[in-house]
């Protein structure tokens, strides 16, 4: 945990607050539509697939696949350090896709590849905010 984190921080809305509260507890929680039985992302109080409003929260297993990525050699100037960042789209085992950072790997296309399995890690960037990030894993994604 760093008290000097200078990067941009999410400011929750009422509809996204449960996601960020769960992240702080090191849980990756996703909204789940009780009508069409699908998880979705980002948080909304209704389902973007069926417009249903019977939405609950379910924790993700935290594993997924890296759909695609870039290696950002010019991180925002506000970031705490200027090392290249791997920024990617993760498709979780439950279906939803989200943007995140891929950590714990050399920021090089020799080490990061599309379709590689990844798992969530939680980065407590401040006392209030935890960012879910992902790292490569050898564990298979559950179907």
């Amino acid at each position, binding site marked *: 945990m760093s008290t000097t984190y200078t*990067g*941009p*921080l*999410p*400011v*929750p*809305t009422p509809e*996204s607050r449960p996601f*960020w509260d769960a992240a702080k507890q090191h849980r990756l929680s996703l909204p789940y539509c009780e009508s069409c039985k699908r998880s979705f992302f*980002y948080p909304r109080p209704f389902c973007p697939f069926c417009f249903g409003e019977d939405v609950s929260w379910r924790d993700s297993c935290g594993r997924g696949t890296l*759909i*695609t*990525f*870039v*290696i*950002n*050699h*010019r*991180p*925002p100037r506000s*970031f705490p350090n200027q090392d*290249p*960042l791997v*920024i*990617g*789209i993760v498709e979780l085992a439950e279906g939803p*896709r*989200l*943007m*995140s*950072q891929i950590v714990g790997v050399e920021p090089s*296309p020799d080490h990061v*590849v*599309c*379709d590689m399995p990844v798992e969530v890690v939680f980065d407590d960037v401040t006392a209030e905010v935890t*960012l879910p*990030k992902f790292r490569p894993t050898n564990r298979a994604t559950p179907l």
Partner: protein
Amino acid sequence: MSGASSATMPLRARAAIVGVGESDQIGRLADKSAQQLHMEAARNALADAGLGPGDVDAVFTSGRNMANEVPEYLGIKPRFVGGTQVGGCSFLVHVEHAMAAIAAGVCSVALITHGESGYSRIGMPRQRWGDDSVNNQFEIPYGAGGPVIGYGLAATRHMHEYGTTSEQLAEVAVAARAWATLNPRAFSRNPLSIGDVLSSRLIAWPLHLLDCCLVTDAGGAVVLTSAERSRDLPAKPIYVLGAGTSLTHQMVSQMPNFDRWDAAERSGAAAFAMAGVSPRDIDVAEIYDAFTIVPLLALEALGFCGRGESGAFVTGGRIAPGGEFPMNTNGGGLSYTHTGMYGIFLIVEAVRQLRGQSGDAQVNGAELALCHGTGGEWSSAATLILSTHD
């Protein structure tokens, strides 16, 4: 032309572009506000059309402020207005909306105007997204704060899926520069090689600095009226045969696929269906090149080549001057100008080509042009098909 009748396609060729213009200078303009760039472009486009501000009854513009800002600045009190803001292709969407309004008889002369101080940042809003926006919650904290990230994500997946190479991406920038060397108004006119692109510094792998568009200050404007009225005006009418728009997402993390451009497939299909023409009929294409990957996915989505074939398609100078597929003949956003919302310049250049006014970059005998734009991060797609014939 065949295939589309006025009964099945009621907007086809009902409106024509009768004026185009740009700000007096384009480039890096430390002494001009975004609003002044609007005005210069509007004044020049109206003069080109043989019209004045008093003839305008519809204004379409796209910025971060209320759509009232530009008409007030210009001293125009429109009875019809469009403020659609879907990113850089917004002005192509405005053409579709203007043609619908003109065909419905609710306006007669539509002014579409753009002014952006993209480099000098004069008269520009400071912040794009609020602190509690979905962008600022779910993308920006991870370092995904600029369009090079969103566009690069598709480049990586396309390379993975189809073996597209950095050299093939660089072909787009090299061809754009070759066109720019023929255009005295272009911002970057020094010769450029594939090696120059590949040795420029990485911004977001796989995209290098020279895979990325310019950042400039400029204005552009387009004037439309009905096909009937256009024949009484001084310029050769350029008919809007087809138009299509599609939105699939706002944040790139919500993009349906990364190795193909769903929105462009839809906007292109709609535009070609309305026009009643096919990709092989197009004489000149102006395709939004914010990054070198954008025309590649567009060429596939619009049907100029098969899926996964765009890298090979652009190789060997095919899209460069003298090639069989003239594309981005002004030098594009990569070498001509790129204010931030480049779309208006696609239309301006297509009209100049169809009028035979593109100077050394003129495509001989061009009668049918395609304009295709992106907005956001592959979020919006808009396609226009313009013609010298109705």
